[in-house]
């Protein structure tokens, strides 16, 4: 891919950013909004992480030491909600804002004012959600999956605020997705056909369609809850002729595509990083696109594998088992492609590459446990135990979150114009890598041995590994402070970055100078 860059620097003096707070409040610039999203998600990552540490501190030893079971449930609920909706999703939207226009050669997102709105309603949503901690009766305490009727008839009064905040998050996600789709469909540089599009852009195009398809479903579910709580309906209340299982069908019809929303952009990021540091073109670009598309389509027909124990008919169990197993095929293709890209490459191990390789290995381990969970009879034993907790943390922490960290190290020279401190970056990687495995690997064993999830206290035979897991969690948590320090240090200064930044870099964003000017590609480049 080569590009012709028009000189656009002479525009800068009358199109630079405004000064002060208003720059951030009123901005319609995709780079500013990307930065806002990334900082917001980092703040949420630390808050959600602190809640995880409350959980791990309580589980350090058998017995109730630090919190009451009631507050423990609030912590595990908010930890899940904040990490999913506050940390991982906004981080990917931030990356999309920064990168999609630069990767397709567009001057900005297609709908810049809506872009501003979709960011600024997010802090409001999370302010509402977090304020529920201080309300009478406490914060939501029914798990991030908020199964009715625990979340309706039996829920604390703050649930209404929770519902409102989910509505706002949903609106933000839907607006963000529309923006991504419109930008990709209409603003690609001449010559950039769909199949030539970089994989991060592809992954986000698919993710955006998934979001538009399922966020309204989530909105529907919480609206029905609102009706059940305040307006006397009985959607999920068996005593009034309703159906508690219906809630789970609706929730997981949203929830399963949602988990792929949190992993598809990670696939895109990993592909870029592995090809760059292997100095070799990505193996199977076309098959990567097809694999992501099939994963996205399959994600709509596997939701009931979260519900194998609710008493579905045999035919449904068999269908959802087979469909779920099928997802291993396109996922396998992606892993094989990454390995084939590295094969006979010319590899170096800068921090982004370390995170990307750890992503491939640990995400694959999460994939294996996912395959085990798909086997319905075995799932009767795994379901709702720590085995499941280990599984989804393996795909979300060293999966999604490692990919976000890899992306930050990979593109931060482009964003700030400065190289990060490589030694500190590597230290951060190794601490996180050890921390994540010490935390989550023993949870496989705790789960298989029989400890259910969402338990504030446990039988004595689970004590050893819970203690190990808690130690790992504190190590992982502490090493993220180092990450914050590295990022701040890079923003303040450092070795100047070249436009290409990396020896093996490929793609339009590496053709513009570092840091990227406030306005880029005001005249579209030409892609051959």
């Amino acid at each position, binding site marked *: 891919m080569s590009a012709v860059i028009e000189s656009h620097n002479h525009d800068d003096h009358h199109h630079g950013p405004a000064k002060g707070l208003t720059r951030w409040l009123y901005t319609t610039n995709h780079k500013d909004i990307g930065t806002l999203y990334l900082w917001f998600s980092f703040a949420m990552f630390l808050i959600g992480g602190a809640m995880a540490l409350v959980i791990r501190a309580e589980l350090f030893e058998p017995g109730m030491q630090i919190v009451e079971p009631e507050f423990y449930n609030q912590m595990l609920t908010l930890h899940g909600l904040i990490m999913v909706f506050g940390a991982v999703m906004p981080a990917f939207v931030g990356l999309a804002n920064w990168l999609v226009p630069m990767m397709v050669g567009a001057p900005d997102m297609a709908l810049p004012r809506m872009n501003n709105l979709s960011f600024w309603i997010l802090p409001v949503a999370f302010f509402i959600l977090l304020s529920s901690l201080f309300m009478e009766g406490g914060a939501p305490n029914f798990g991030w999956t908020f199964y009715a009727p625990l979340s309706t*008839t039996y829920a604390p009064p703050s649930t209404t605020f929770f519902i409102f905040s989910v509505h706002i998050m949903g609106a933000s996600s839907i607006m963000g997705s529309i923006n991504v789709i419109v930008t990709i469909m209409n603003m690609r540089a001449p010559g950039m056909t769909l199949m030539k599009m970089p994989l991060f852009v592809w992954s986000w195009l698919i993710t955006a369609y998934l979001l538009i398809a399922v966020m309204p479903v989530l909105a529907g579910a919480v609206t029905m809850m609102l009706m059940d709580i305040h307006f006397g309906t009985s959607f999920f209340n068996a005593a009034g002729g309703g159906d508690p299982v219906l809630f789970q069908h609706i929730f997981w019809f949203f929830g399963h595509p949602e988990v792929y929303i949190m992993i598809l952009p990670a696939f895109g990021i990993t592909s870029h990083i592995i090809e760059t540091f292997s100095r070799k073109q990505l193996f199977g670009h076309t098959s990567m696109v097809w694999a992501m598309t099939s994963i996205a389509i399959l994600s709509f027909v596997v939701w009931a594998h979260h519900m194998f*124990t609710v008493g579905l008919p045999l035919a449904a169990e068999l269908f959802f088992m087979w469909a779920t197993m099928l997802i291993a095929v396109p996922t396998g293709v992606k892993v094989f492609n990454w390995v084939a890209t*590295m094969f006979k490459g010319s590899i170096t191990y800068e921090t982004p590459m370390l995170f990307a390789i750890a992503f491939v290995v640990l995400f694959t381990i999460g994939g294996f446990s996912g395959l085990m969970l798909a086997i319905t009879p075995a799932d009767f034993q795994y379901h709702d135990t720590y085995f499941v907790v280990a599984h989804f943390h393996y795909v979300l922490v060293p999966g999604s979150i490692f990919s976000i960290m890899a992306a930050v190290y990979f593109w931060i020279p482009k964003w700030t114009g400065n190289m990060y401190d490589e030694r500190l970056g590597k230290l951060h990687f190794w601490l996180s890598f050890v921390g994540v495995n010490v935390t989550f690997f023993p949870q496989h064993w705790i789960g298989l041995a029989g400890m259910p999830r969402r338990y504030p206290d446990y039988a004595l035979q689970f004590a050893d590994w819970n203690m190990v897991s808690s130690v790992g969690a504190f190590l992982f948590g502490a090493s993220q402070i180092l990450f914050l320090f590295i990022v701040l240090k890079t923003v303040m200064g450092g070795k100047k970055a070249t436009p290409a930044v990396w020896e093996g870099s490929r793609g339009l964003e590496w053709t513009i100078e570092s840091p990227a000017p406030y306005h880029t590609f005001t005249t579209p480049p030409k892609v051959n």
Partner: protein
Amino acid sequence: MLKKATTSIKNKLFVTFITLFSGITSAAWDDFNMTKGVTAISKEVFELHMLIYWICVVIGIIVFSIMFYSMFAHTKKKNPNPSTFHENTKVELAWTVVPFLILVFMAIPASNTLTKIYDDSEGDINIQVVGYQWKWQYKYLEDDINFFSNLATDWDEINNLTPKGEFYLQEVDEAVVIPVGKRVRFLITANDVLHSWWMPDFAIKQDAIPGFINTAWTVVDEPGTYRGKCTELCGKNHGFMPVVVKVVSQDEYDAWVQGKKEEALKMAELTEKSWTVDELTQRGEGVYLKNCVACHQVNGQGIPGIFPNLAGSDIVLNNKARNVEILMEGVQGAAMQSFANQLSEVDMAAVITYTREAWGNAGNGDGEIVTPQDIVEYKKPKA
């Protein structure tokens, strides 16, 4: 004593590490792996688990070996000029088709076992299991036996005031009893929120859902005491409602059934007897500690905003009729459930009387007490 418990955990930690590093012995294996269980089905499920596990391990070793080989052999130093290949239809086809075939191979035994599990024909013994916040009720449909099973672990152990016993959080006041070798069918449902009845040794995990009845069955070949748990988040004491099943010989089972029936007769006699306030209060305290304390707390003051205060409450002090009604019917739209089926007439009367006498309530209200006859009266069909 707390310190002693900590030391013993540290010792255990040390021992576990030693076993881990000196090669995992079969004794330690149970701490790492799924239970094999004691039924034909649970053993089949265990085999499936091990099969899929080894498939994953083998695939993982192959893929990661190639990857780690590249990571060492194809560095910039050793291989400064990267190859340029970036697709290969044959290879790509192979790594799509081969995994698919492995999955088909795996799906066949899994589907077979699943079909066996889904046999919901009648059992020799049929037991209805009902989940409550936070206890299980068991009703033996043939023998008209009905009891609740509560956590037996003392809250002092949970709060680290006394040392934890061997079956910490895995013991109940009354276990389910079933005979060995008989087909037992469980009909599982819930009274309030979702619960899930899990008995790992039988490979049974079925959600208990209000308004639905799910079935599960088992034939257990080895007598013994088996321990399981609630596995669906059901509120604050989700971690404190274990399942215990005792599997006994047919003779022992028959004797147990006989004993339960005699117990029921004795209870009927108690209902007839005339009670003093002190007797009722004394009995009521026990009932309160077992059934009410989780929400309304030991001091009766509840949790502000969630669970109402009973100490000085106007209903408890002055409104006997409403007081009885709340316990018998529950409160619509709130966590307060009906205890009409959970408590005998005697216990119901005792616990209401207790709340009207405890925490300084005595002498502050109308002073009325509730007798078992009041409850019998309440239960009579109204004209």
